[in-house]
């Protein structure tokens, strides 16, 4: 099966000129609008922030347990 001919003559050989699709353009029909994308990125950030806090707390608790065990035995 032959794929359709290239739709653009724009040089993309370096791969650096990646197109940003404006949220209102017809191209972006499948893509959520910008406010949704912003909210999504905020959620991702919040998860990573909480992960950092949870990991820090876990390390501190384990160190405390280790210290307590060393003192009690």
């Amino acid at each position: 099966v032959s794929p359709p001919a290239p739709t653009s003559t724009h040089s993309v050989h370096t791969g650096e000129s990646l197109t940003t699709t404006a949220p209102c353009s017809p191209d972006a029909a499948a893509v959520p609008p910008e406010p949704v994308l912003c909210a999504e990125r905020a959620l991702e950030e919040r998860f990573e922030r909480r992960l950092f806090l949870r990991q820090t707390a876990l390390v501190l608790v384990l160190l405390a347990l280790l210290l307590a065990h060393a003192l009690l035995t």
Partner: protein
Amino acid sequence: VLALDVFLASLVFVGTLPLIAGCYQFGLAGLHRFRRRTRAAGEVYPRVAVVIPAWNEAAVIERTLDQLASLEYPRERLRVYVVDDASTDATPALLRTKAAQFPDLVFPLRRAHGGEGKAHTINHGLRAIHADGWYQAVLVIDADVIFTAPSLRRMARHLADPEVGAATAYIKEGSRPANWMNRFIAYEYVTAQAAARRAQNVLGVHACLAGGAQLIRRASLEAVGGAIDTSTLAEDTVTTFRVQLAGKRVVFEPDAIVWAEEPRGVDSLWKQRLRWARGNIQVTRLFRHVWFRARGSDRLGRPDFGLIWFSILLMPAFLLAASTGLIALFLTDRAFAEHAFRGLWAINALTYLFITLSSFSIDPRTARMCWREGLAFPGLVSLLIMLYAVFPAGFVADGNALLRGLGADPSVGLGEALTLFAYAWLTVSMAAAAAIRQLERRRCPAWLCGALVYLVGYGPLQCAVTASAYLKELRGAEMRWEKTEKVGAVGELT
């Protein structure tokens, strides 16, 4: 005598290297927020050519294509090339149907003579897309991998950064209903992907773009020759290394979730992981000039990355060294042997707590499904030994009472036998795991094999596979692409 004791103790503590590497990775994973690169990146939608190698994929290919058709991605920027590797089932007919249903999206390609393996099949697709010249990035996926709607969009945004050459997704086990093996694998993927690959993002160097979901910038693919490696069983790892050696970064996107169907039994897992382990041994040899030789921007030579890589690759040897050291110490200096044993297993217990609780925190949804398998990952026998190492007094008293209750005399011989068993367990567990596989091949009931894996541990099973991979490589055994059978078990997932 002192020199001998020190030598044997150092053998024992070689067994802690994988534990130290594990803790280091999970510690780094917590720092991921400081190295996350998508904050500044806008959404970008490069023209993506998806290449799917397919050999007898009738059970799964329709759903995979339907899911690709419903991605949150501009349709005119996506083309899917399914390379049929001379399938003998209904795959070609299904591909014709899908091409008719999605004429601007699905492009079936067929190899007249198949059977050369996945890498050759992918290269057939890559030649086609090179000839076409349309694409800006290529996404190589497996025929059974189900992309969630936002996954490609989230991977692609990393390509806004010109330093990034490739991105990979978080592959999760999606079989529903999930059996005990699926749940072990689901937990394993939390540790090996969600945690370890976050850590590798922080380090700025990656061991492997997941073969089932690798998005590669066109310039990076061309920089590594425009094709993927066919000389090893780990073509995805070779691509990952070459992209990085060519000066680009590889990133893991934890929020790009894709679902895959994984093995449901010990034997099928063994075959899959044997292929991966042999591939990793081949990669280690292929890139022997890279290890522990950090130069300029080449991060593959970082000592900590080398420690992580070899702590997994050499784990069977480390465990064997620890057991050998303990037993030799038992024969020469029992009091010192006891101290070394308890030290080793106390570190093991601490690492287990840190890694298990971290994993639950990194992917709470998966943890709700497979927390039992997370707890039982090292095996119930190992958990008992950890308990003994941390609370020896209470454990010995309770153990003696239990033995007396069973009519045995804990003071005679039995104590020594149990001690030797515990000292040798790190090695014995690998042999026991290999035996479970043999039991399954001899039609032992699935529930019994499952119970034995909980007892012996999923971790030792992985180590046994790695040990087997070394033996196969030493023997120069034939490299066969033993494809994992897929039946379309991925459930309705959100």
